[in-house]
């Protein structure tokens, strides 16, 4: 059974320490989430993005520094830095949308990026970072399905920024918004498939 769990509610068993804290030998939830009592998982329903090394992000170049360093907006709280290395020569301008990997997490508010790649023109939307794993799907199934059926080029960052271009953008955005709303329901891949096929 999956049920909504509130901050301060005690949980009998937990699979991971994510979303919980210990006090007096007992485990409590610290967030609003969905608790699955069969495996002890807590999925958070809300919350800010916490950067992790190796994650893929989408961002917008916001500042050009000295010696080809760039600042990149990733979220309201996190900024990325690109340092041009010997093997990575590129030129960006303010407003360029890029995808990159997190090379190093300096702090919650500052990360170093590597392998930046320009994404070109297009639109960006913000989705809740907690819903990104569902938007991507296991082994990219969900996002590949959307890209294939809408003929859009899509890049999803773990930070919640999504870049899209070409194809049926309106349909793709509707699908992304629906996944965001219904992230905690089951059979979502099929539902989205039907929606994209106009069924």
């Amino acid at each position, binding site marked *: 059974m999956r049920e*909504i769990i*509130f*901050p*301060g509610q*005690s949980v009998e068993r937990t699979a991971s320490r994510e979303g919980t*804290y210990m*006090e007096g030998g007992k485990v*409590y939830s*610290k*967030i*609003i989430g969905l608790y699955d009592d069969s495996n002890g998982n807590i999925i*958070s*329903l*809300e*919350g*800010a993005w916490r950067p992790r090394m190796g994650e893929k992000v989408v961002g917008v170049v916001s500042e050009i520094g000295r010696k080809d360093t760039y600042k990149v907006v990733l979220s*309201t*709280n996190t900024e990325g830095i690109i340092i041009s290395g010997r093997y990575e020569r590129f030129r960006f301008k303010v407003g360029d949308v890029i995808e990159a990997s997190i090379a190093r997490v300096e*702090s*919650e*508010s500052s990360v170093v990026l590597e392998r930046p790649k320009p994404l070109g023109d297009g*639109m960006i*939307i913000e989705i809740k970072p*907690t819903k990104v794993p569902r938007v991507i799907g296991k082994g990219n199934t969900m996002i590949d399905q959307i890209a294939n059926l809408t003929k859009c080029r899509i890049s999803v960052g773990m930070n919640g920024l999504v870049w*899209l*271009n*070409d*194809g*049926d*953008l*309106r*349909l*793709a*955005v*509707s699908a992304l*918004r*629906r996944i965001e*709303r*219904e992230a*905690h*329901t089951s059979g979502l891949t099929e539902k989205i498939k039907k*929606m994209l096929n106009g069924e």
Partner: protein
Amino acid sequence: MASAKNKPELLKNGKRLDGRDLMELRPIRIEAGVIKNADGSAYLEWGNNRVIAAVYGPMEAQPKHSADPARAVIKCRYQMAPFSGLADHGRTGPNRRATEISKVTREAFENVVLLNEFPGTEINVYIEILQSDGGTRAAGITAASVALANAGIPMKDMIYAVSFGKIGDKLILDLNMLEDNYSDCDMPMAISPKSGDILLLQMDGNLTMEELKTGIQQVINAGKTISAAQQDALKRFYTEKQQAGSGEGRSEAETTG
């Protein structure tokens, strides 16, 4: 406390003027997620009180010197809308009363929010009293607690607040405006229901030791009802949102090319 002069009868046949029993709460209804731009929000109706609360953050603390490198800082602003009262038109902007309430509210939340998880950031809590009928600071805290949970802010607990007071030698719970003005005691408290810890406590008037004990116990007992209203708001928000999702929703893009 107003003076005893012109003091109206606040109890008739053992009931309060609005028909409540001594320890009866006014009806509470909360709605979560009412401010689309906010990271978390809540609208609360508590008796005739109408309160809206919004949370933004954690985000980079501004100005930078206000940041604490070890933890997040909470910035809280309680304010009353100029049309919130019956008899007056209040001026906007914080007065001394609102500034004090903002401070004690912030301190209550600093106890439960896990501040060390977001060093260098700020969490903004805005509480606006759109209509007031006594007990607005308690209503504000109860609403803001839902807004913080709705924002996904990690917390040890979802706190609630309510006040107790006294008419003659009778203790009462959840004072309305009239009772607040003329009762013999007003004691607002904020409680962490998990531990029973008291996170906000103010009082003026007079109380015996015995009354103090009984009053605190009544505030603790009332927690079940208030917490249930908070949890119900969040449950409805997350389950109704999932049902509303059957439609196509608002599209944001037009086909290009």
